[in-house]
């Protein structure tokens, strides 16, 4: 029996850097869970290399980084580290407070999407599902 069609997307919801405000990441985790996804949730303050290990061990499709202070400035480093770990298929989204010009930097670094305050539940869920499908399609089957 092939269950591939019904397998839920796996999403790592985490925070890197220094900030610890988790209202946003908790709400997003609950949204995604309620939309039928499997969410791996962590403490704040993850290091880049830890996020890469978590993403690898948990074989996730999407990584969601919540950033309310300036921690999004580290995301380009994460993108490089993911590629180096042969995890380039994983889609990365950033949610939180990101200034316009730095959003451009993030997208150029390979981030798939930046969600700002006020983004709606439906919008986020639909986008994450779409990105998870993209990632799954690119995932090396080995």
């Amino acid at each position, binding site marked *: *029996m*092939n*269950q*591939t069609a*019904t*397998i*839920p997307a796996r999403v790592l919801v985490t925070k890197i850097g220094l900030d610890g405000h988790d209202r946003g990441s908790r709400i997003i*985790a*609950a949204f*995604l*869970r*309620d*939309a*039928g*996804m*499997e*969410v*791996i*949730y*962590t*403490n704040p303050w993850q290091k880049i*290399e*830890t996020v890469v*290990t*978590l993403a*690898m*061990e*948990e*074989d996730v499709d999407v990584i969601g980084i919540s950033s309310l202070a300036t921690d999004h400035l580290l995301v380009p480093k994460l993108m490089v580290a993911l590629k180096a*770990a*042969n995890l380039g298929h994983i889609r990365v989204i950033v949610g939180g407070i990101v200034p316009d010009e730095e959003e451009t930097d993030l997208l150029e670094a390979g981030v798939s999407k930046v969600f700002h305050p006020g983004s709606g539940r439906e919008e986020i869920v639909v986008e994450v599902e779409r990105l998870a499908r993209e990632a799954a399609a690119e995932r*090396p*089957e*080995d």
Partner: protein
Amino acid sequence: MNVSNPEKPNLATRLINGEVAALARAISVVERDTPNAINVLRAIRPHLGHAVVVGFTGPPGAGKSTLVNAVVAELRTRDKTVGVVAVDPSSPITGGAVLGDRIRMAEHTMDAGVFIRSLASRGALGGLSAAAAQVADLMDAAGRDVVILETVGAGQSEVEMARIADVRIVIAAPGLGDDIQAIKAGILEIADILVVNKADQPLASQTKRQLEAMLSLRAPAEHPVPVLSTDAIARTGITDLADSIETVAARNERRDDRSALAGRSRHLLAQAVAKAAESYVLESRSQAVEAIILSVQEAQIGLSDAAKQVLNTIHKELDD
């Protein structure tokens, strides 16, 4: 369809060679039951039997993840490599899940000697993921010395765990009266080791005594079940627990024992058949099934007779 790259060793080989990324991917392949899954499972067969599989179960709030974290730390000081399968329940309605067990195991994330994977139960009977047994096999084949299965106590899961694990640990939290009742109902039969965690709490010793009293009512066993006290946060009692695990592991039948494996395969097959029959009834819109459903609805036949009729229908369909 197996699209493995001929240039590159296949997934199973890489896994057996200890490549963690391959283990991670193989778990997904098996969990998703992709066409490659059976190839992987076949390829690892000769490499099974090294690991000791230790099951941890207990009610929510008993501190399972924290205890597993402490035990993993202890096993690492004993130079054991460890695989952890942490199972959390999926929502029965949406199928989604927040997998947060590894939050309490963060100290091991960057240790290459520890591999942690979170699984959602995905509606499997009893809260233990259907794939958990196979995931344990993958970790075994990948050379992990100890594989820990952590699952929330939800009635059936203890029994499921008992079939997969070599060492079965049941965790109780102090002072939960109902909890003790639940344990009475069936867990005592399967536990190799009982643990009262949160030993710093006032009711811990009382709970320990209650458990010991319950055990004393049973027929005398060759190997009495120890009741251990731990405080996973303060890391007390962990050495004793790890010693106890080693003692039981050395004594118990191992999974590579032929009859044990046969028994496990029988149960796994039974589960898979039940799951297939369930999907058939839920998704089939065949006239025959609709007719059986109607007769159940109108109380014309009992459920067990109806089930037999369904199996007959499936049988006929396969013949056609």
